[in-house]
């Protein structure tokens, strides 16, 4: 019995080798790992505040912020698509940082206004089409240039796109087409494209990765992901659709009830500066920084040369619009067939 006691006691004590809550800034980063690391070390060098950072995808971060509401372990959430940031703001999970937005581009300020200052735009990325040049040539298909080209029956089984029920990227596409063509016309087009889709993936970045490897011929997704893959050496060609395209705005938010609110505000101020944003060029960040003073990579998709729609974040980010569009997508696009494996 005595030995058993000591074993169980030792086990319990091992479990109690408990945590440290030192003064520091806890950041969740939803950008690329290298970009996260670089920003953290730059911030540490500039402010002397100790940064503890972990990288998680936006959906996972939002789920965690929800579960931790009331006693958050995260101070600030930086990066990732804007929608989850806006949802967090609407659910009152984040709080206004009061950062100065005067040097920012209009779309970044727009996000801040919609959310009451709770999230501020840090970068933008346009939606685009990519195709694998090798496979396209092998199949003897012509390259798509417009959204409407994708409805061509020649592409049957060649297009891959994410499912908007699980992916924010695909929802941006749905909302973009709705804004470009009007709702009825957009759903007709989506159903026609749907007849060519081989798979509705769960994750938004999966289609472009599949196109890069030749697992599908054409993908729809964010251009900066495509540039990334192209730079890695894949034979991926990127198309800015001729009718115009929508875009996402990445955000930065301070979590409500953060343990280190002062440091969190400093982080927000810091990541909005031109110097901090253009450092992304060193690690290959191809989306467009929100500070008008930040310089751009020659390879990154130049938003001024792309026909961008006037994306209505307030309407299409609202949950009732979202639910209505998704229900309609489920019935008219997914339900209308498509998703054919050859």
């Amino acid at each position, binding site marked *: 019995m005595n030995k058993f006691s000591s074993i169980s*006691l030792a086990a319990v004590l091992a479990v109690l080798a408990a945590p440290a*809550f030192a003064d520091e800034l806890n950041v969740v980063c939803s950008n690329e790992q290298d970009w996260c690391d670089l920003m953290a070390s730059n911030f540490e060098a500039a402010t002397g505040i100790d940064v*503890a950072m972990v990288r998680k995808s936006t959906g996972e971060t939002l789920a965690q912020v929800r579960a931790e509401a009331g006693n958050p372990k995260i101070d600030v959430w930086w990066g990732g698509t804007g929608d989850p940031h806006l949802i967090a703001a609407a659910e009152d999970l984040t709080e206004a940082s009061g950062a100065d937005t005067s040097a920012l581009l209009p779309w970044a300020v727009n996000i801040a206004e919609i959310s009451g200052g709770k999230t501020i735009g840090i970068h933008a990325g346009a939606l685009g089409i990519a195709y694998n040049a090798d496979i396209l040539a092998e199949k003897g298909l012509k390259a798509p240039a417009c959204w409407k080209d994708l409805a061509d029956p020649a592409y049957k089984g060649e297009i891959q796109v994410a499912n908007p029920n*699980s*992916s924010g990227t695909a929802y941006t596409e749905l909302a973009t087409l709705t804004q470009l063509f009007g709702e009825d016309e957009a759903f007709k087009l989506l159903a026609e494209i749907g007849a060519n889709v081989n798979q509705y993936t769960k994750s938004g970045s999966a289609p472009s990765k599949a196109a890069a490897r030749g697992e599908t011929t054409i993908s729809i997704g964010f251009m900066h992901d495509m540039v990334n893959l192209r730079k890695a*050496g894949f034979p991926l060609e990127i198309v800015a659709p001729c009718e115009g395209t929508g875009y996402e705005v990445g955000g930065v938010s301070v979590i409500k009830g953060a343990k280190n609110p002062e440091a969190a505000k400093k982080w927000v101020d810091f990541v909005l500066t031109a110097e901090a944003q253009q450092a992304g060029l060193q690690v290959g960040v191809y989306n467009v920084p929100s500070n008008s003073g930040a310089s751009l990579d020659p390879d990154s998709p130049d938003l001024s040369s792309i026909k961008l729609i006037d994306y209505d974040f307030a309407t299409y980010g609202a949950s009732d619009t979202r639910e209505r569009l998704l229900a309609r997508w489920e019935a008219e696009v997914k339900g209308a067939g498509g998703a054919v494996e050859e």
Partner: protein
Amino acid sequence: MKRTAGLWLLIGLAGYALLPWYMVSGGVFSLGWMNEMTGTGAAPALLQVVLHGKWWLSGPLPAFAAAALVLALVHGQTAMARGLIIAAAAGLGFLIAEALLIPGTAARFGWIAGEGQPGMGAGAFVTALGLLMILTTGISGLGRGRGDAFVTGLIGLIVALVATFVFYPVAHVLIRAFEMKGGAGYGISEFFGRFFSADLWGLGCLTGAECGPAINSLILAVMTGAGTTALGLAFALIFTRTGFRAKPLLRVLTIIPIITPPFVIGLALILLFGRAGTVTEFFADAFGWEKTRWLYGFGGIYLAQMLSFTPIAFLVLIGVVEGVSPSMEEASQTLDADRWQTFRYVSLPLMRPGLANAFLLGFIESLADFGNPLVLGGNFNVLSTEIYFAIVGAVADPAKAAILSIALLVMTLGAFLIQRRWVGKKSYATVTGKADSGRHAALNPALRWACYLTALPWAAFTAAIYSMIVFGSFVKLWGYDHSFTLEHYIRAFSVSFANGVRFTGSAWDSYFTTLTIAGISAPLTAFVGLATAYLLVRQKFAGKEAFEFSTMLSFAIPGTVIGVAYVMAFNFPPIELTGTSVILILVFVFRNMPVGVRGGIAAMSQLDRSLDEASLMLGANSFTTARRVIAPLLGPAILAALTYSFVRAITSVSAVIFLVSARHNMATSFIVGRVENGEFGFAIAYSAVLILTMLAAILILQLLIGKRRLRRADRVEA
């Protein structure tokens, strides 16, 4: 009883009076709290009551006093036991009520307005443990558990642990299944409609359309369970019943898939069998076959799951197949049965517990598997991915996630009950301690060749996949640019020797954290798992079946749900653990413990009770018997439990994604981030290093634990 209860009384009292009741910053081992023992933060409960007016913490004190009085004054055995039970149960009940009623910043239900308290710390845990053990000692005093304080103590401890770290968090998530739409509170009315909806259970695939995810999961799980069991058995038979020459090589090949981060297998399969894969290209060029995307869907997931989970079946079965007594087989042959009859009517029935447990594990693993369906799922929807996206997708729906989790649990419960019936109540004891020096009957030629023909091509396939993975880590861009490079390794694992050794590679941090956490959680998992198995096989107590199923619960629920459940349950007092390494250790221990339990049950049902009885009759108590007689005979089961829990702590993804924090990041979540970013070479290089690390760890474990000696000739009849 008196001594034991007295000892626990002192331990509990020490926890109450000396250790800080609440969590202290820096941890209890930093000892910094000793200087502040009178402050509100670090004071033990006794001082909290006296100095800070936290009167609700006084509950355990009268309980200890009453227990001490009982021990000192009462003489009759039964009366003393009753007294201890009443005192300890009251103290424990008060402690739990106080902890649940006054969480965080304000008391629940407006009970004592304005009072809140931080998370429980070392003092609270030791006090609770002391009370629990006094309670169980008292119960043993009533003659339960054969009057053995060790047995009742162990049951009490495991029940308490499972309740705290499985039921308590899981309840947080499952209750949301009853949440009404639009924030209208909770109710049962919407639940049944959603649970039995055709979206979930649709049988469309029988008529050519799509099935619901629940049916898809079920079909996949049954096939994976059956397939992995059959393959695992073939491998186990080759090892124990044939003279196959390259056994060590085969051993490595059977183990290697479980030590692989899940997405790596998927990626390798895509590169081989995807539409642009090597094998696909080869057949397209050679035979003019159409290049298809068959891999994305049922076929691909099934292949990946077979690869991933066959080793688990093998690990469970090898010990069981080895343990089947040669004497029985010899007796059968003496009675003129041929080898096939001996195998069919003697050996195979004796392996039943092993087969059943291997199937159950394969079934459950398949249901809860998340990585493979995510990569290879195509349009084939299964519950685990649906649940993940119900939680983190663009439209978060916690109620849907909870309902799908319940569907998963129902299936697990069903499989569990069926396997119980199938194994039945027969005796499978074949390790008896009697002279037993026979040799295992070799397989008859037909069966031997059947084993070779299933297992060896599979092993070759595994070898091909793993050489591809190693290849992938040394080339610039796997699939496109095959020029040799060490760049991926350098980026991940570079070391700088200027000014002493510094680990500059970006992977080191998560690598060390992962090894530490896996190293701590593995022995704990094996201990809890095997102790549970010991209770289930060797002891009789009320509610045993429910207890057995409850230990399977955390395993059957997908990692994502467990992850969220742990955040919801352990982010707030009374138990506040998020952001620490403790929560990672706990999630691994309680998630992987069922493998220890299943393996332990399978192995232990082979050990004849007469061994325990002989030991007990010679005056040893249950603890000594478990340690000196049973544990040494469980070598393979201990090895399997340790290996599995170590490996799972390193390779699991979905559960840890919500639990990792900046200070405690795990290798898999780091790798997944890299994959999301398209850095395949880096991710594969890191995975290759992890695979080698785990392989080394397994070999060391094997050396340390060694083989159990059954005093049987370790060879097979010619």
